[in-house]
């Protein structure tokens, strides 16, 4: 059954900003879908609010809308573009829920658009936990005992029937949002409130707990001819009770006999048929009781999911791409297998290797967050590794995390048995390390199994690793056989060095002398049964390598590894752009990365893909393998964020050619002293600062430059470990903590610039000329990390003089450092003084945003410049505009506002104030003709509901901000809001004629007849919170107010600048509502304006 002829245009819905539980895997799937549809000659219309995605690059769709994903916007797009169909199954839960909302509002019927991929009824059956349970029982499967509830009362009743512990699971959510394990009634009350809130249908399932059972997932695909295939089986290392997103997972399943596996497969196929997912992918989770094999169906997601991305990377079977083809009418047997080209896609991939995924957490950024892992996902990213056996894959995955202490430690165990067992019991980030240490200390496999419920097979594998470590330790001499044995179980040179008390360099030298190097195998979907046409490689210590010779000039691009706060999809975006443009320029592009969620690890993105950790050893080996097979021009370290940048010098020391900015120049920007000299030469200033390696030194510096000061360890990204310190006592506390963060590097102490305007600049340099990519003005003042601050491009309040000064300064810094490629500079404007905060000699987080806002591909230009092109040449070629640059604005230019998306909702009890340490996971863009509307769009994209247009505002303002905010509060009143205030704020604004309703302070306690601010928020009476912080810590009112707002998803503004921007937004929204305009339409306007400027 070939392609349907009645579908000529399709609206694809993306997944919006990166949040916990929904990361760049949906960029990967969406990008694949857009590509497929376009190649089929279908007009593609795309909506996604996330500018950092590849899918929103204008060439992937015919009309790309970077607008909030709301029913209102969707209706406007449908009205304007009149698509024949909507494809909602590739944009995660966001897209699925958006499509369901369109259905409920009658919009699908009104405009006669069809949902393809999954029908409304199928989504309903899959996502509604109650309906799903009855489906499972219809087909003869089993689910855990449960009750469906819509209110707290119902929940309490059901709990009596089911008994504790209980699992609370909301409908139509993902990433375990709003779910939890309740051990008693108090827990239950807490979880039910958030659970009902999280579910768009206010529905939760209370379920008997089956913590400790084995957990599995199957990825399925079905076509409309009812052909069904299983793409991948995944087994969780962590048993039930830990969300699969937070579990270490393994593909294929390791501990199932064929009977059990086939039973699971039968049930899965029956479920997908009964639910009626007629085309596309879906994912079904299972639990198995290890004692008797009883199997239970946990849930299904009738869409492409995070696990589908993992399964695609793990098997080489591109689920999203195939799903898109199935949605427009093809059947599986009509689609060729992408990798073999000759066999069809209607088969089940088989693996001759093992894949391990490990989650990456960011608890260190959220002090106070509960670090126990539960049903509610908390990880911010993941790394995947491939090996020829489990131990190899596991150890590679752990080192891919790039986290201190993530790799196994084989030093003598000093902890007590009780402590170790205790740590094995509770799942946390790093439990696997406790398990390994326990086994190393001699605790028996059985005991560790009893404590952790982790399958003995996995535990034995860890024992094997420990045993090998012991052999390495005891061997008189490391010979070829022993070292090969260790390498084939995943030991890194560094680990071996640590065990042998020597250096990584020495082990590497020994290994190379022994001629012991990894071979590279191919991921081919078929365990070598057919020839693979796609060079998708992973390393292993085995007999035969499969790297093909090539006579093209090669460039290796180093990716950015697992997503983490501060280093996410934005860097992948730049890497992908480099691959695209260098391919066009005739190079053979080679990608190295270990993040399964990304577009860069799609084997279609580059000419060759190495799915490898980004450590020195692993990268050097890829370089070696590629040098053996052809002419390597160089390695790009500038685009993948701090991870590859940090490798630059060491790679160079090992004779690896680095293209673009040299490692020496990188050092000039990264090392404070050296950078200071660059600034001095350029006559620029930075905030007064000093470098301290002890508390005494820090104290001296701080008292010289005056408090408050900003302290941080050197060489960090995302403001890691950065704090504003107000006095000596705080300083002492900080130093005590900080010296543990990074003992090799000293602590920097800066004068903290109060009330300064922060500015971000991205610029290209070719050695002679500069091309200014864009200037962004932050909404929040300096002190809020640039990654967390909203910003506007073009700047809204900078004068032409400032802009000129910024241009000149940027040029001086870039040439002073010797940048070839991209550079990002952050400035702070305090009064009339322009300070340089830092310069990053690499592509920055803002590159995609700037590129989308200006229509200029900075990352592509950067890649070309690194390989020798000049800005002038690129202007002639058309990759850069003929004249002017990204900082030039025209009357026709849009205003683009970026807003950060924060994960506080995931970390119950963590204060939601912003500071110099970055906390956001993602971003959205609002683009429009006025700042107000663009800002309002950004808010609407970032927070469900967006800015309120009417209702009740609660204001509670710190004394120092009161004066500056009175006018703004008055404006709120004028716009029609009812003002509620805390006592101090109420009486202060009263003096200026603003009446308000006073709410009782929370810390005074709750009394009959008077509501506290926190109660009002929790009751849902407040539509907007304005709270500027005074004092931090969980006891303050501010903290309670913000936490309540986060829990209830009420927008919470914490700065005067933020409120000012919000007012602009509310005002323009009240006047005119949103209009939609595609990036292609904007580009046309900007380009014709640019043309006019020439003539």
């Amino acid at each position, binding site marked *: 059954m070939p392609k349907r002829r009645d579908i000529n245009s399709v609206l694809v819905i993306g997944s919006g900003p990166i949040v916990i539980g929904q990361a760049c895997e949906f960029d990967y799937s969406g990008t694949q879908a857009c590509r497929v549809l376009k190649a089929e000659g279908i007009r593609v219309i795309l909506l996604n609010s996330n500018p950092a995605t590849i899918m929103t690059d204008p060439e992937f769709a015919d009309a790309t809308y970077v607008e909030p994903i709301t029913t209102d916007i969707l209706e406007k797009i449908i009205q304007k573009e009149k698509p024949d169909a909507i494809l909602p199954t590739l944009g995660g839960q966001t897209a699925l829920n958006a499509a369901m909302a369109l259905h409920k509002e009658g919009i699908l019927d009104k405009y006669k658009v069809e949902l393809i991929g999954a029908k409304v009824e199928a989504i309903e059956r899959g996502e509604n936990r109650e309906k799903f349970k009855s489906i499972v029982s219809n087909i003869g499967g089993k689910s855990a005992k449960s009750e469906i509830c819509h209110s707290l009362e119902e929940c309490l009743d059901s709990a009596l029937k089911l008994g504790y512990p209980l699992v609370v699971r909301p409908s139509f959510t993902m990433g375990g949002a709003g779910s939890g394990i309740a051990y008693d009634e108090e827990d239950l009350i807490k979880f039910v409130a958030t659970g009902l809130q999280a579910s768009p249908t206010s529905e939760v399932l209370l379920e008997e707990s089956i913590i400790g059972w084995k957990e599995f997932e199957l990825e399925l695909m079905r076509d409309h*001819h*009812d*052909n069904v*295939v*299983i793409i991948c089986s995944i087994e969780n290392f962590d048993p039930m009770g830990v969300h699969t997103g937070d579990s270490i997972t393994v593909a*294929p*399943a*390791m*501990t*199932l*006999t*064929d*009977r059990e*596996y*086939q039973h699971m*497969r*039968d049930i899965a196929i029956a479920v997908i048929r009964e639910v009626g997912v007629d085309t596309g992918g879906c994912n079904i989770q299972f639990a198995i009781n*290890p*004692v*008797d*094999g009883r199997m239970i169906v946990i849930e299904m997601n009738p869409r492409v999911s995070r696990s589908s991305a993992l399964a695609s990377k793990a098997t080489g079977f591109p689920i999203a791409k195939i799903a898109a083809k199935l949605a427009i009418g093809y*059947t*599986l*047997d009509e689609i060729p297998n992408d990798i073999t080209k*000759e*066999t*069809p896609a*209607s*088969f*089940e*991939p*088989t*693996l*001759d*290797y*093992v894949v391990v995924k490990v989650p990456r957490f960011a608890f260190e950024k959220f002090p106070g967050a509960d670090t126990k892992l539960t049903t509610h996902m908390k990880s911010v990213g993941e790394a995947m590794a491939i090996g*020829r*056996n*489990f131990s190899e894959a596991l150890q590679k995955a752990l080192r891919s995390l790039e986290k201190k202490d993530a790799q196994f430690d084989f030093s003598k165990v000093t902890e007590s048995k009780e402590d170790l067992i205790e740590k094995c019991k509770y799942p946390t980030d790093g439990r696997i390390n406790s398990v390994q240490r326990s086994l190393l200390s001699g605790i028996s496999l059985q005991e560790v199994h009893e404590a952790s419920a982790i*399958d*003995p*097979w996995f535990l*034995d594998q860890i024992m*094997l690793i420990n045993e*090998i470590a012991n*052999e390495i330790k005891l061997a008189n001499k490391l010979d070829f*056989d*022993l070292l090969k*044995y260790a390498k084939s179980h995943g030991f890194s040179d560094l680990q071996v060095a640590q065990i042998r008390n020597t250096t990584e360099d020495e082990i590497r030298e020994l290994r190379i002398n022994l001629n012991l190097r990894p071979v590279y*195998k191919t991921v081919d979907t*078929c*365990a*070598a*049964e*057919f*020839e693979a046409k796609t060079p998708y490689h992973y390393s292993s210590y*085995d*007999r*035969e390598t*499969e790297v093909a010779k090539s006579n093209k000039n090669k460039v290796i691009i180093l990716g950015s590894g697992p997503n983490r706060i501060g280093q996410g999809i934005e860097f992948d975006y730049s890497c992908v752009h480099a691959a695209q443009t260098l391919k066009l320029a005739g190079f053979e592009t080679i990608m190295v990365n270990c993040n399964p969620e990304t577009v860069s690890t799609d084997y279609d993105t580059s000419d060759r893909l190495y799915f490898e950790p980004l450590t020195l050893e692993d990268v050097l080996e890829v370089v070696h393998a590629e040098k053996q097979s052809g002419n390597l021009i160089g390695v790009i370290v500038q685009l993948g964020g701090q991870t590859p940048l940090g490798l630059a010098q060491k790679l160079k020391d090992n004779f690896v050619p680095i293209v673009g900015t040299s490692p020496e120049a990188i050092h000039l920007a990264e090392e404070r002293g050296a950078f200071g000299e660059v600034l001095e030469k350029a006559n620029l200033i930075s905030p007064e600062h000093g470098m301290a390696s002890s508390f005494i030194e820090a104290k001296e510096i701080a008292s010289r430059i005056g408090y408050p000061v900003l302290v941080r360890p050197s060489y960090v990204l995302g403001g890691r470990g950065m704090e504003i310190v107000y006095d000596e006592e705080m300083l002492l506390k900080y130093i005590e903590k900080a010296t543990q963060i990074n003992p090799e590097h000293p602590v920097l102490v800066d004068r903290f610039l109060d009330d300064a305007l922060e500015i971000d600049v991205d610029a290209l340099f070719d050695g002679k000329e500069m091309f200014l990519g864009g200037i962004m003005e932050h909404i929040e003042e300096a002190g809020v990390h640039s990654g967390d601050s909203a910003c506007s491009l073009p700047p809204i309040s900078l004068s032409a003089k400032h802009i000129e000064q910024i241009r000149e300064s940027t040029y001086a810094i870039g040439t002073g450092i010797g940048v070839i490629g991209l550079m990002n500079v952050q400035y702070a404007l305090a009064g009339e003084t322009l300070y340089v905060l830092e310069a990053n000699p690499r592509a920055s987080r803002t590159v995609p945003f700037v590129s989308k806002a200006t229509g200029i591909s900075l990352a592509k230009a950067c890649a070309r410049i690194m390989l020798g092109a000049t800005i002038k040449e690129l202007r002639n070629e058309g990759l850069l505009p003929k004249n002017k640059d990204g900082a030039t604005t025209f009357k026709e230019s849009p205003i683009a506002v970026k807003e950060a998306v924060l994960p506080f909702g995931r970390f119950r009890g963590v204060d939601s104030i912003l500071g110099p340490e970055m906390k956001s996971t993602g971003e959205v863009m609002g683009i429009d003709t006025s700042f107000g509307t663009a800002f309002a769009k950004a808010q609407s994209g970032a927070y469900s509901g967006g800015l309120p247009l009417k209702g009740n505002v609660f204001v509670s303002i710190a004394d120092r901000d009161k004066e500056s905010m009175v006018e703004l509060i008055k404006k709120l009143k004028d716009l029609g809001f009812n003002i509620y205030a805390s006592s101090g704020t109420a009486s202060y604004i009263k003096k200026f004629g603003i009446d308000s309703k006073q709410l009782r302070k929370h810390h005074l306690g709750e009394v009959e007849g008077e509501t506290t601010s926190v109660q009002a928020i929790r009751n849902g009476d407040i539509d907007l919170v304005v709270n500027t912080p005074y004092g931090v810590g969980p006891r303050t009112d501010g903290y309670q107010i913000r936490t309540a707002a986060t829990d209830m998803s009420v927008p919470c503004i914490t700065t005067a600048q933020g409120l000012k921007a919000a007012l602009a937004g509310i005002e323009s929204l009240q006047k005119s509502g949103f209009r939609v305009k595609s990036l292609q339409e904007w580009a046309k306007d900007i380009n014709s304006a640019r043309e006019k400027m020439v003539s």
Partner: protein
Amino acid sequence: MTFSPALLVLEDGSIYRGRSYGAKGETFGEAVFTTGMTGYQETLTDPSYYKQIVIQTAPHIGNTGINDEDDESRKIWVSGYVVRDPSRISSNWRSKRSLEEELKRQNIVSISGIDTRALTRHLRDKGAMRSGIFSGELDNKNQDYFLKKVLESPQMKGADLCGAVTTSKAFNVKANGVKKFKVAALDLGIKNGILQRLTNRGIELEVLPVTSNFDEIMKYEVDGIFLSNGPGDPATASHAIDLTKRILKENIPLFGICFGNQILGRAVGFETYKLTFGHRGINQPVMDLTTKKVEITTHNHGFAVKAPIDKESETEFGRVMVSHICLNDNVVEGLALKDKKAFSVQYHPEAAAGPHDADYLFDRFTELMSKK
């Protein structure tokens, strides 16, 4: 890390060094790879693997041990076993003993620590070939010795092996539940999975030795006859082929699996031929040409029937069509006689190991027997 060494030697002279696994000694057979990720117990006990050294492409083997329920026949049939990473422990609630213990108990010479992917690629390109595993005392033997021994071992082409795997005397298997039919199953190396699938449909079985003749079979007053899977070259099975011709002549409902498909093919006049490396795995896409639906199936065959796919063939027994093909390479995977009550498939609808997609074929058989 003290391992006892072992060698895998191929007839083209390639040598793979590994560690001794299972029993020690020397063993010979045709080197073939199978790509299934689950079901090693079923694979090892499948009589169709008789005289073959089986290579598992899945690296971890033995994880779930050996249990008492999943054997496909009375013993392990493979002549040797090649794996990469055998499990050190067994983890499954049904497990009774470890795989290595079982291999030792049944004296199966095996080898581990092999780059099974490199080996598979080699066999894929060069074709399945004779091979030997050597372990134990190796010191005083050299390359020439190993190769000579391998070259002395018999070829698969022309091998008549059913006699060795068939039951020595007839036995009866009761129908599961109400008995609806009685079927004679010619045991060419039959798998337990097939017995279960048939008896689950109310079929009482008389399992008969391969040498049984038509009259002996008909004594049991059967409603249908089943031709099982089995090892070896179908060209050698002349007795079974003649028997099948007779069955067709009498138009007794007939169903064949695997070897049975090749016998039916030859009985109606088609040729059989040896595939380069065969089909062995549990992920093979087969299309039922009558419904155009794809099923994921278990394969284990080194030979195949040569028949035109795009048109019916006129034969001595009327019209015969190719009912199923493998979508990977268009190999014939099933035959259906239009004018007789007979059909067969080259693959394994009983799965074990493998997916159950083709289970419906057993229903087709009962339907055929119901048609009066």
